[in-house]
């Protein structure tokens, strides 16, 4: 297994290099691109050309890439055009906000998903199972901006119980916690449906296995059978799915962040992409890919650890 982990790390490094190169080329290929963006829309061609030569932007792409890579590895992520601060600073600031949001959401989603998924799975075909299935399907059909609009209309506009935006500022009437409630709720509603369905399917498959019959015919109570035999088996496959939600929670929540004006990573990337803030885009992409690959690797390793059929050979 250590050999496997090392090999995967190697792949990861390779992918990161590939992705960073691709993004770099995408944004900075034509020599005039960067200079034009720096100078703005009204620059004359001569000005653009002059700045290009000055910044060394007329060198071949590969050379510029290695230069860039060098900067990256030494920790210099460049300067943000739109925010006028070092990229590292704004990136970290926004990332920590997103981690907070994602963390709270995760803590809400996972227990609920496991609870409902298992409850549905052990009662396959019953009314409760049907209700949970239809319910889970329903809520995962609502796009986040729709849920955001619905919830905001009810709780912020009509009832006034929660703030309509969540800029995470401490001045003002609303506590930080209350600013988190609706964003977390929206994320949770969207994500939990998918997880419930997954866990339910896994539980149903396990309950159909012959070893469950063996346990019952040993004289075990139904509750014990579920807790001691079914659960562990049922949660192996969804475990990786749960872990991969982290992936989604990091960047995929841009919609929620936009609806509630939450100062998060996703929104940063959107703004950067739209205003062609290249340094931020490049650095942000790398961070996102790094997080994604790490969760994938952890998921794979965890799966190998959890299932003795893979961990222990004959």
């Amino acid at each position, binding site marked *: 297994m250590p050999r496997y982990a090392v090999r995967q790390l190697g792949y990861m490094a390779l992918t990161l290099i590939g992705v960073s190169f691709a993004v770099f080329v995408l944004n900075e290929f034509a020599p005039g691109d960067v200079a034009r963006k720096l100078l703005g829309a009204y620059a004359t061609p001569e000005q653009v050309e002059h700045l290009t030569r000055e910044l060394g932007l007329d060198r071949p792409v590969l050379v510029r890439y290695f230069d860039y890579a060098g900067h990256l590895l030494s920790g210099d992520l460049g300067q943000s055009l739109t925010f006028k601060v070092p990229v590292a600073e704004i990136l970290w600031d926004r990332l920590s906000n997103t981690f907070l949001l994602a963390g709270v959401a995760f803590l809400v989603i996972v227990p609920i998903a496991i609870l409902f998924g298992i409850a549905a799975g052990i009662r396959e075909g019953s009314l409760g199972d049907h209700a949970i299935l239809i319910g889970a399907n329903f809520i995962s059909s609502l796009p986040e901006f729709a849920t955001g609009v619905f919830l905001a209309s009810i709780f912020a506009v009509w009832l006034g119980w929660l703030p309509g935006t969540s800029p995470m500022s401490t001045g003002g009437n609303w506590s930080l916690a209350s600013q988190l409630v609706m964003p977390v709720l929206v994320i949770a509603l969207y994500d939990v449906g998918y997880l419930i369905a997954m866990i339910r399917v896994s539980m149903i498959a396990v309950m159909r296995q012959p*070893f469950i019959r*063996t*346990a019952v*015919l*040993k*004289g075990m109570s139904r509750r014990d059978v579920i807790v001691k035999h079914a659960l*562990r088996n049922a949660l192996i496959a969804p475990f990786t799915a749960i872990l991969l939600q982290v992936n989604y929670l990091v960047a995929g929540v841009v919609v929620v962040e936009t609806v509630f004006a939450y100062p998060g990573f996703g929104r940063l990337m959107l703004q950067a992409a739209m205003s062609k803030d290249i340094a931020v885009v490049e650095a942000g992409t790398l961070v996102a890919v790094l997080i994604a690959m790490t969760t994938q690797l952890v998921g794979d390793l965890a799966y190998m650890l959890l299932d*003795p059929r893979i961990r222990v*050979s004959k």
Partner: protein
Amino acid sequence: MADQPLLSCEALSVDYGTGDLRQRAVEDLSFHIDRGEAFGLVGESGCGKSTVALAIMRYLGRNGWVSGGAIRFDGTDIASLSEGELRALRGARVAMVYQDPLSSLNPVMPIGRQLMEVPLLHRTRNREGARELALRALAEVELPDPEALMTRYPHQLSGGQQQRAVIAMALIAEPSLLILDEPTTGLDVTVEAAVLALVDRLRRRRGTSVLFISHNLGAIGRLCDRVGVLYAGRLVEQGPLHQVFGNPRHPYTRGLLNSVPSLGRDRRGRPLTPIGGTLSEASRLAVGCAFADRCPHVVDGLCTGQPIALEPVAGEASHIVRCVMSPRLPAFSWADEGGPAIAEQPAAEPVLEARGLGKRYELSGPSGGRTSLEALRGIDLVLERGRTLAIVGESGSGKSTFARIVLGLTDATEGELDFRGQNIARLAIGRRSRDLRQRLQMIFQNPDSTLNPSHTIGYALERTVGRLHRVGRADRRAAVGKLLQLVQLPANFAERMPDELSGGQRQRVAIARALAAAPEIVVADEPVSALDVSVQAAIANLLKELQVDQALSLVFISHDIALVRYMADHVALFYRGRLVEVGPADAVFAPPYHPYTQMLLASVPDPAAPSQRAAAPEAGAATAPETTRGCPFAARCAWRIDGLCAEVEPPILEPGEEHRIACHLTLQELPRHIGQAA
């Protein structure tokens, strides 16, 4: 009361489903099991025997329910037990052993813990005590190194070991009744014999009653005192084993017994007589005899129309049968006579010859290491024109690998395979000429996956004809009709889909598909293993007829040595990829034997002489590590010479012409009696 039977099934009826979709699985079933006795329930698929077991445990699921009668255990009606009482019963007083041991065990829990759960539930709260009991149980089922086994996971054990563990788990709380539901299906023949022998020893030692459910008449014969025969959910015959198997009075029982190949029946003797027709759903609901539509002795009006009661057989008071025609049936004779000795058949020209054929797989292990697996080594075989060469072996013997090499589905890594002067050992199917492909065809084992479920029968056959012969549309259609006729299926089957056909019918189509090519050589890889016993006989007979009709040379692969006796001109025995004995059928089945051959022969239970053949004792562990030197059978051989057999390649002995045995023993030392210990 000591006289009361331990288990009493009284007029039990079990239904599945509700309303329109209701199916009666068991009808008016009555039997009893006394303390200390072993009762067998025999029947083919769909007869309801497994349902009976589940009904006793009151585990019929949401869809099944007892619609009539009662089951009494030790005097108490099972239906009257509360949930708590039922739990106290299960595992402690009635325990069950299942068909597929691997899926009956929790894959992520160590074996020791699974065993310990039973005493912890019923007898003690003390973990140490439970652990002791578990260790003792593992030792009692003769598993090696119980201490180490406690922490292993199910997938690390072989099939036979898993089943022993399940038996240990069932017996650990010392139940009064042990239910075994097809416990050896899927296990190798030699392993099956060992497991049955173990169960027999244990139950006699402990005085446990046994309910043994199986379709395997030989196994029933080895283990049971009394037996009941089920057909379409009804009991058709019941009584002491010797009486039912020795003097069967129901046509179905006779049909079953006559369709089981035994070692006494060679290919010249009386053919196996299969039971015609198939079990239809309508017959389950018939008021009269359920077997009427398939019975060769049926009399309309007498057998149909009114319910038929169980009546005792003349002279055998405890032997009852549900058949009106029973007293008028002729005496039953075992078809053990071989036919008149045919003059030595002249050796025919070889049409396929293997020389030193071998196949080695290179695998990368989960942690990155490389291991090599030797599936075949040093195979020298000859198939003569118009004859049947049988290859006998258990799982891991390499027989399927050999078949795949012949057909080009995989390639050999060493040796040659000569067909019509061409070496095809490494000629992949994709590179073979159409002519070559047409001459070599295969019939597969599994009727469920041998036909594409999305295509009609007619399409599959027509396509084969079209690809291998250049004929026009009309000719193809006609060919399909003729093929169906050859395998005794009606022409309108061409429009059907595979899932509308029974297993036996699908296998016939598979044979038709192989014949569509008009081949010279047909390789049949376990063609009947997945079918019911009575259907096996029909397909086996069909193959024999077709071989003569179509002048085929047949390679018949099977693990069933008795069936091989019935089919083969020449026999080759494979063990772990090596050839241990080969020769004309008469020579192989007569002494002297290779020790493995002897073990195989001894494990064939013979319904005609139940309990007569005891299995040859297993000297070594059931799973031996891979050996690349020496004799592959050394680890299990009761005649093993220490220091020699496991180290040095055995020499080839020739007890007769064309008859070869690979063994270190001399010709005089080779075993000559089946059932003989070293």
